[in-house]
């Protein structure tokens, strides 16, 4: 059975000079929840728009159920889409909006009513059918958009930053509901967001975009625990970076010399040669204080902040590099006074040697600046 959706060597340029999407190869399985994650301007919307049929690839092919979509106009693709600002028709009531895909498909009036009612129930908007979109809150409008994209039972639903306009609490609630609906209906969802937290909680797989190309694709755990580039490590989750040079290679491990001359043992995240510059990437929660560990570094404690469920320490290494440490409340020794010297410990499996800035195969911009 072919993948549900397939991008094969897809390229897109609007102006004939810059590629907004480069050589995109992507296969999406039936029923999968796939997220396109990346900073703004990285080509996510463009990829989604080509799948929906509003833009045509300048090269390559997109297939749905193994059949090329090149000749299919958007209204024949049978793909549900939730737009960023919902695009609810302002002159129609909620019920008319939701009935729209059915009535253009010439579903009989007798069938439209129950189907609209059922889908409005699913998004918990029963009783609001006679309102106009302007009379609804942002969260309710979002549900109407969702209902309208689902009512004609498409096998594939596209969502372009559907929660971008909602406040944090509502956004988390809607993430949960969208996931529940996805599980209940078993539809394939292609979801676009620039919010890594949202991508991590919702997705089966995440494709990380940067500058029109996929940097890495994998499950949320794969991306978090084994980022394949400094860009991905930095974009997903919190991350500490240290610059170094590969001194020796030993199978999946390597020894890296830091700027101050000390060496640490790390996992090779990329196939970097001996002598290559690299970036070490360590998650803040994988650093600890004064425990037995493979690698130990002396540092000066800059400050301590209390967050209830954890404590964050900012430490400065001899080479003036700054690291953040996240400790569980029990793991923090007492007393901690800024200015004191501490000893950091971490294991080689939690420390990955990745591409150094400017040396990557893809010139990834600093994601922190892009966010």
């Amino acid at each position, binding site marked *: 059975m072919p993948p549900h959706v397939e991008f094969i060597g897809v390229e897109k340029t609007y102006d004939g000079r810059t590629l907004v999407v480069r050589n995109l190869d992507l296969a999406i399985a039936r029923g999968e929840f796939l997220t396109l994650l990346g900073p703004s301007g990285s080509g996510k919307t463009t990829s989604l728009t080509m799948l*929906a049929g509003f833009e045509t690839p300048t090269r390559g092919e997109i297939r749905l159920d193994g059949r090329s979509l090149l000749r299919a*106009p*958007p*209204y024949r693709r049978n793909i549900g889409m939730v737009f960023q600002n919902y695009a609810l028709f302002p*002159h129609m009531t909620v019920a008319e909006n939701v009935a*729209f895909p059915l009535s253009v498909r010439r579903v009989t009036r007798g069938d439209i009513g129950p189907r609209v009612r059922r889908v409005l129930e699913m998004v918990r908007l029963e009783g609001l059918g006679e309102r106009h979109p302007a009379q609804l809150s942002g969260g309710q409008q979002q549900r109407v958009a969702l209902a309208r*994209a689902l009512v004609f039972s498409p096998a594939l639903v596209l969502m372009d930053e559907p929660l971008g306009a909602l406040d944090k609490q509502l956004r988390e609630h809607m993430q949960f509901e969208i996931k529940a609906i996805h599980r209940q209906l078993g539809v394939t969802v292609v979801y676009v967001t620039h919010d890594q937290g949202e991508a991590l909680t919702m997705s089966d797989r995440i494709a990380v975009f940067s500058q029109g190309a996929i940097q890495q694709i994998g499950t949320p755990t794969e991306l978090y625990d084994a980022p394949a580039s400094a860009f991905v490590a930095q974009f997903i989750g919190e991350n500490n970076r240290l610059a170094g040079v590969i001194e020796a290679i030993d199978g999946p491990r390597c020894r890296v010399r830091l700027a101050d001359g000390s060496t640490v043992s790390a996992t090779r995240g990329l196939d970097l040669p001996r002598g290559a510059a690299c970036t070490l990437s360590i998650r803040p929660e994988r650093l600890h204080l004064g425990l037995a560990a493979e690698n130990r570094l002396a540092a000066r404690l800059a400050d301590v902040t209390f967050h209830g469920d954890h404590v964050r320490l900012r430490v400065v290494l001899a080479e003036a590099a700054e690291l953040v440490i996240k400790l569980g409340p029990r793991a923090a020794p007492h007393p901690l006074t800024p200015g004191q010297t501490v000893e950091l410990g971490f294991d080689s499996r939690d420390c990955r040697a990745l591409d150094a800035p400017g040396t990557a195969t893809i010139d990834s911009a600093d994601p922190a600046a892009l966010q």
Partner: protein
Amino acid sequence: MAADETAALRRRLMRAERRARLRAFALVAPLLAFLAFTFAVPLASMLWRAVADPELGTALPRTAALLRAWNGSGLPDEAVFAAAAEELAHAAQDKAAGLLAKRLNYEEPGYRTLILKTANRLSPPFAQGARAAMEAIDPRWGERPIWLAMRRAAAPLTGFYLLAALDLQQGEGGVTAVPAERAIFRIVLWRTLGIAAATTAACLALGFPVALLLARAPPRRAGLLMLLVLLPFWTPLLVRIAAWIVLLQEHGVINDTLTGLGLTRQPLPLLYSRSAVLIAMTHVLLPYMILPLYSVMRSIPPVYLRAAASLGAPPFAAFRRVFLPQCLPGIGAGSLLVFILAIGYYITPALVGGAADQMISSQIAFYTIGTANWGMAAALSAVLLAATLILYAAYARMAGTGGLRLG
């Protein structure tokens, strides 16, 4: 808080607000004064002239009072004759008699000479009595119609002009239609409404695609196209009409081209026809349709059409059910604007239309400039104003209740 404290607080609030209100009023006061002087006053005086009937009261005040008391049966009694004869003889010296003669002539052609003749020849004292003296000058003074006409003219207000503007008249048996050979205004009114409706339809048919093009074009091209749309606004009206005369006349550009190509044997009668009026008026009024349409279309985000397509609507269905309904406010505003401007048109039909293409404004011009019949001109203006207001009310009602819906 104690009650008197609250009251004091409320007073302070009112004082503060009153100052703000006064300041706001002072800011708009010049505009209000300007509007009152240039708009409200002329309008009110126009409406007043449509119903005012002062001529008899001015020329023959005592007679007017007596006629108002007369019950209208038979002939008025001797006192009325006496007052009329004396006042008519007196009025012969000033302009009032002339105005009265003109006014009564509207009631029945021929009354002008009757009044002027009688006024000139009467010379008191009347040896045989006033009635005999008047009947000696013209036997019509011994019959009822002139007295009934004068009785109608004696009231300070009259429905005469307004009825006449609708081809109605006040006869002895109530309001009746005027004889067909004298009915003109209703035909002209319907013609005016018809030409305005046809012009509106033509403007909509031509303007809608242009507005759509403008709304969809990238900003720089839209700016250039908008310049072309607005160009006619910067050309004087007469120049534009003259251009149409050049194009449409018997040996004009169009006819020369048609005969030159051998498509027609003789020149077509294009100028001084209904089509010339429609073409020229559509041309002049087109921007008034395009601008409101354009501004409404610009405010409709293109994402709605994408949403409609993603939901399965083919282009035409998306246009009809999603785009068009959202254009309705623009269609309504543009049509109303064009229609209301069109029903008041005067110069254009006068220059490129034939006798059968003249609109109600030409009648108004005729009565103001041609015959100085202010009452009739004012009544026709009032009818035009009423038609406009009715249309506007209908539009506001449809727009207000959302009744104008296609989707």
